[in-house]
């Protein structure tokens, strides 16, 4: 059985910052597992600016921000990066099973940092009635299609929810020559950062309907139309206040959920409401030596805070390993 001092799951901003911090705090045997074919995580598709003001005191795009960490990892031979490595099982004693093309491997971690990020809420989770045609995407998926694959997922979009990714995709659609008919937000104000309302929505004169929700999606093969309804302070529909938008695409941007099925499998005590580990202290879990950092610990607004807090996870893992000896 292969045993490693520190295994980190996830090569996004959290996992990379934790790996570098652990290395700088004296951990000399680190295995970093990343499911994609490159490091960087979600930053690779976040091509807009706004990253790094707090952490680097500079304005960077997502890929530029990621690059700073990737360079550091490349220069540290103590950090072994295993790409296209997808963890499928985690046990209480910190043994992990992961698949790489063609093989199932397992490794036991003396200390483990889970930096698995979060996933987007879906249409199903906000209960939109109507048909199930093609043309309904989570905002982050649309972002990947445009920015990584070079595919435009639609021509006329309505955006459900005013989360940051939705706002940023509103601008991206407009820049690509598509039309954004409306952003529809059930709350009375935006969930995203104000700066994104200004530069993504107001700059392009996209109407935002607060206190509204999409009530129905129409269309057989492809989305053809949606209707939206005004809601009261308790999110109950106000009858007779329905509006319709012709569109071929609906983007869902209604929030993120920490991705923590693996630690749950290992028996970490979980908060069922937030899907994050129950913890009295940043990055710790109910299993000693098993740390969680970044968006899988709690959903952050900006990546700078993810990096800052993940550095602490790297340090905690180093301290834990020192105490074992």
């Amino acid at each position: 059985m292969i045993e490693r001092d520190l295994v980190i799951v996830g090569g996004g901003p959290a996992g990379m910052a934790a790996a570098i911090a652990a290395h700088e705090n004296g951990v000399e045997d680190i295995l970093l597992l990343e499911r994609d074919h490159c490091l960087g995580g979600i930053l690779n598709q976040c091509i807009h600016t706004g990253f790094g003001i707090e952490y680097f005191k500079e304005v960077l795009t997502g890929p530029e921000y990621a690059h700073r960490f990737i360079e550091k990892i490349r220069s540290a031979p103590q950090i072994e990066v295993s790409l296209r490595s997808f963890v499928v099982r985690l046990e209480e004693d910190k043994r992990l099973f992961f698949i790489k093309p063609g093989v199932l491997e397992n490794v036991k971690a003396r200390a483990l940092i889970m930096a698995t990020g979060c996933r987007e809420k879906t249409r199903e989770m906000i209960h939109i009635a109507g048909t199930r045609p093609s043309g309904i995407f989570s905002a982050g998926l649309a972002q990947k299609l445009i920015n990584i694959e070079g595919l435009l997922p639609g021509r006329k979009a309505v955006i459900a929810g005013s989360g940051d990714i939705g706002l940023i995709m509103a601008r991206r659609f407009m820049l690509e020559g598509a039309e954004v008919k409306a952003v529809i937000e059930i709350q009375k104000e935006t969930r995203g950062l104000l700066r994104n309302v200004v530069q993504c929505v107001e700059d392009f004169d996209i109407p935002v309907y607060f206190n509204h929700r999409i009530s129905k999606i129409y269309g057989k093969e492809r989305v053809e139309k949606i209707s939206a309804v005004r809601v009261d302070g308790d999110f109950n529909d106000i009858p007779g206040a329905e509006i319709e938008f012709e569109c071929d695409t609906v983007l869902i941007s209604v929030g993120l959920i920490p991705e923590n099925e693996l630690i749950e499998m290992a028996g970490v005590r979980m908060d069922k409401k937030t899907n994050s580990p129950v913890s009295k202290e940043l990055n710790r879990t109910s299993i000693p030596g098993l740390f969680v950092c970044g968006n899988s610990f709690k959903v952050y607004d900006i990546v700078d805070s993810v990096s800052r807090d993940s550095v602490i996870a790297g340090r905690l893992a180093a301290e834990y390993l020192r105490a074992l000896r």
Partner: protein
Amino acid sequence: MIRKVTCIDCPKGCVLSVGVEGRKVVKITGNECPKGEEYAVSEIEDPTRILTSTVLAEGFSLRMVPVRTDRPIPKGDIKRAMKEIKRIRISEPVRIGDIIIEDFLRLGVDLIATRESR
């Protein structure tokens, strides 16, 4: 005349009150740092944005290379800039920060790669 401007320079999003006379800014309040002042003047007198997008890479496994203007460009030029970006093809390897087009649209800014081709 007082205009409300939300600063987009950092995630705080300070809401600034900007005193405007004609097209000139005469007074700014509400900013938590000096960047807010700079932003307010630019936003009223000559609004600009950093433009980010992607260009098609030919012959690489990564199909799109993300790019940005190295400095902000006038808001009014963004449509024209996007048209131009769609025409660009990258066929040589690029590194992060490499200039894709110098003096982009004669705006005095460079279009640079924000990720290496691969």
